[in-house]
């Protein structure tokens, strides 16, 4: 499936910003199941310095420095991407979840990189509620993917997608209590639960196609940056991406930007400003098939 991505973020400041430094995670990631045909990130006003590199997780990251006073800052992403992630293995063929946790704990060849995602992180800390919630999907000996699919479905059924009731700092316990939130909340909740069982899982950011294919189901969280969970199935099967907001395995309706331990590692636009006063931000995302 080929898509055209357009993602526009506009910051508007109450007072001029004298000096601004931004770190951007906005380039679609090149992956075996995702070809990036073109990708351009542009900013207005023009930064006085712009550099790019791969971050710790292998994502493409950019830095933009502005040292002239400005009252708005707009970043536009224009990209064309072809996606087609392979179908996951049959759940019954995947190893028991305890074995996957043991591999991650031991580290070493084949497992050490995945092990990084088995530990708590600042925005997906350990939470007893999340642990108990996740544990119900993982009775002893259950194949890892069977447990993951069950957990994904339970989050989708038990939680209401409701923008505005949470912020990115809403604790997981609160999300659990109100049984509502947005994609980030569901992702952090699932990560916290899986990691409490010792299972490596990562935060994936990206986009979801804006309009469903003809006859397809309407998706939630499509008009903004989206987030879902990457989960490790053990050294043999590697990673699979699961979208708890929509209860689907990621195949060809998602475009991957970046992954990290949680939102904090790969926030799309992060910045430190000198001045500016109050600010507002407007985000528009469009993912159309071409």
């Amino acid at each position, binding site marked *: 499936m080929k898509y055209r991505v357009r993602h526009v973020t506009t910051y508007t400041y109450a007072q001029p910003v004298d000096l601004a430094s931004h770190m951007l995670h906005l380039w679609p990631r090149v992956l075996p199941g995702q070809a990036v045909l073109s990708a351009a990130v542009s900013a207005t006003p023009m930064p006085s310095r712009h550099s790019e590199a791969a971050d*710790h997780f292998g994502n493409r990251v950019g830095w933009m420095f502005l040292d002239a006073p400005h009252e708005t800052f707009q970043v536009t992403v224009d990209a064309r991407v072809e996606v087609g992630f392979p179908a996951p293995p049959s759940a019954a063929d995947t190893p028991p979840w305890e074995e996957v946790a043991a591999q991650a704990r031991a580290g070493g060849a084949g497992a050490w990189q995945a092990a990084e995602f088995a530990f708590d992180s600042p925005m997906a800390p350990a939470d007893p509620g999340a642990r108990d919630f996740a544990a119900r999907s993982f009775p002893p000996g259950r194949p890892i993917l069977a447990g993951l699919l069950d957990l994904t479905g339970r989050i989708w059924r038990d939680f209401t997608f409701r923008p505005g009731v949470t912020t990115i700092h809403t604790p997981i316990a609160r999300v659990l209590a109100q049984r509502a939130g947005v994609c980030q909340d569901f992702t952090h909740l699932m990560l916290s639960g899986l990691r409490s069982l010792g299972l490596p899982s990562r935060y994936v950011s990206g986009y979801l196609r804006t309009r469903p294919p003809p006859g397809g189901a309407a998706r939630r969280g499509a008009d903004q940056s989206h987030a879902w969970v990457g989960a490790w199935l053990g050294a043999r099967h590697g990673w699979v991406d699961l979208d708890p907001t929509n209860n689907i395995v990621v195949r060809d309706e998602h475009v991957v930007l970046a992954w990290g331990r949680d939102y904090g590692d790969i926030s*799309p636009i992060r910045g430190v400003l000198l001045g500016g006063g109050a600010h507002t931000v407007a985000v528009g995302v469009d993912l159309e098939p071409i």
Partner: protein
Amino acid sequence: MSGVEARDEMVDGHGGLRPHWRGILSAFAALGEGGLAERALRLDRAFAEEGVSSLLPGASSEEHAWRCDPVPLPIQAGEFAELEAGLAQRATLLEAILDDLYDGQQLLADGALPPALVFANPGWLRVGDLGGNKLQFYAADLIRAPDGVWHVLADRTAAGGGIGYARENRRLLARVLPETFRPMPVRPLRPFFEFWQDGLRRLAPGGAANPTVALLTPGTAHRQWFEHMYLSRELSCALVEGGDLTVRGGEVFIKTLKGLQQVDVLLRRIDGRMIDPLELEAGSLIGVPGLIDVARAGRVHITNDPGSGAVEAPALAAFLPDLCRRLLGEELRLPSVPTLWLGEAAALSRVLAGPDGWNLRPATDGNADALSPAAMAPESRAALLARIRARPWEWAASAPVEPSVAPCLMPDGLQPRPVVVRLFLSFDGTGWRAMPGGLARVLGSAREGAPGRGGIAKDVWVLSEERGDAVGLPLLPQPRLALRRTTGDLPSRVADNLFWLGRYVERLERAARLVRAAITRLSRAQALLPPELSELDALGRCLAEAGVIADDAATAAATRLMAGALLTSVRPGATGPEGTTDGGAIHALFVTIARLTENVRDRLTGDMYATFTQTLRAARGDATSAGRSLDGLAHAMVSIMRFSTAVAGVAAENMVRGGGFLFLDLGRRVERAQAVATEVGFALDQPPAHVETGLRLALELCDSAITYRNRYLNVLQPAPVLDLVLADQGNPRGLAFQLVAMHGLLDELGGESGVREMLAGAAAGLLAEVEALVAEVLAAPDQAVSASALPPLLAGVAGGIADLSNRITRRYFALLPAVQTVGLTSEVAELKGAA
């Protein structure tokens, strides 16, 4: 190993004195009965005078009290050489581990290190490899076991504080107890600092010939602020806070008065996680946004590397022997205290089988205190063990090793006390070298303590084989320095602080003069004559204007209220049942001046700092003990004036003209000019018939009564009085003198010529205005009427001075708008749907 008797550093197992202690003990014996205790007192006093325990509120509390024991801890040459070789190997090993962890992670891929020690390690930063050496400085805490073997208790790779204290201990001990050094071949510390400094200069990107090295400190609130300041002097580098630095065009600069000055090497003394709010801890206000990007591009070298703290993880000790063989192909020369990482099943069951025989520490936090299950209450012990069972990989266990004891001077004489020794090493690009000395700490009930947290320290003496130990080191040739006399490289923040220090010292002095003048009248409140009442009224208005007392206490009709308000003005705030009350205005000035003094401390010589703080402390003490006595309060005001005079004198005699002194003096002149214009205005605010009262008060407030009498005897007339207090450029207490001085200082400051001339011109304009006012009074047919009309005009002059002060502030002390972060804060996104 516990249960074995501790080794005694001074006495061998047979009760005999170890030979290298002989010299020290015979020197002590020569001091005679009570001699050592007397020297210990002098040593305490020397530390107090040097201000090692700081003047800042909180910093001088018990927690930070720092004492140096007069008995040093000597280490023999051969033994030290072994320690140095062992620590050099350890530093090399830790560097090799860091190199792997930040590039490639082969140790993880091969299973030589468990993932938990890296990925769950808060000291391991996800910023990639910044290149270059990760470590240039390394410190280790060591204890000596009963069998005589030194063991490393902790590795310090992030900052490794304490070296400044070690050097200060040596300096003061040598001053107070010179006799003990004479019979002993003690190796000097200074050459190590030259070695260290040389190594820092070699780190400059691109081998810059005359690199700028800056020490990055969190600021005066940090408990090791003293050490940061001390090190910046010893290493001849700039002392900067995050706010002093700015990233432009991919490089990092210090903001100075003259403009931006590029930095090549940053000696990091802030937590690596806090160093860049853009890439690391988003809320950090002590870091520099974009700094990591500059370091990654190789345009500045940060040392030690921001991520160097990763190898401080206590659990790493369990892996070091294997890692040493693997990475260096050698056996580890210097053992750690026996350590287990509980993420290994065998280690966990061993520790859970007998937890009371172990000390437990978080696996990756080298700064957390060890917990001893044996010493815990049953409930907390059970809770700890439950936490360990739930997440065993987060814990390390170490076997308790009985530290050796060394003699310490206690109230009942020399007593053996357990000690831990911190040694310091530096790397010059080819090899590691240890400072021949160190910081020993006497362990109290707690097993460990950190430098800066107080306690008793000991100077560590490394003895050389022979006297006259070689000092010469191969140093990087220093290029010839260009002569510099400008004021330009003063950081803007420092200039700002000096300017305000000048203003606040003067403000405090003005307040003291006013309070004293008011007390003189209040203390005979029953017998005040009408002219005195109107003087008291004018004084009340001056005091209210200066913020010392409230308006309702500012009239002569309310003498008791005024007296009470004056007594309250020096009181600190109190927390009572009705909440917290603010301290009085004069108390607030004390606090502000103490803070500003601390902020500019690195610009003051030791003597100046001591003079500032001792006289200020004396004045505060007198103010506190005034209680409800107006007489006591008057005495305190005299102490304040003595403080102010001491500051002026010591600054005038000791500070190099230009730079800092200019701003200190400018602040003082601005404040005094504004005060004279305001106060003379209030004094003259009388009906023409009573102008004489106002004139007398004006002379008193400007300390000019005697000069006037010498010139004009007892005849009081408006024009001569106003000439003396307003227009006479030779009267240092008058207005014209201040304006002339301001003009000169502003002209000297430099900067782009247009701005400079405008500011200096404004001072000259004010002077002309004042001269014209006085000339008008002189020419008036009735001087009294003309003088009575002056108050609004003088208020205008005071306003002009305030305006000039604002313009100086804007020009020289770049007002920084607030810093904020976006992208990780709660943003309410306005969703527009598809764009």
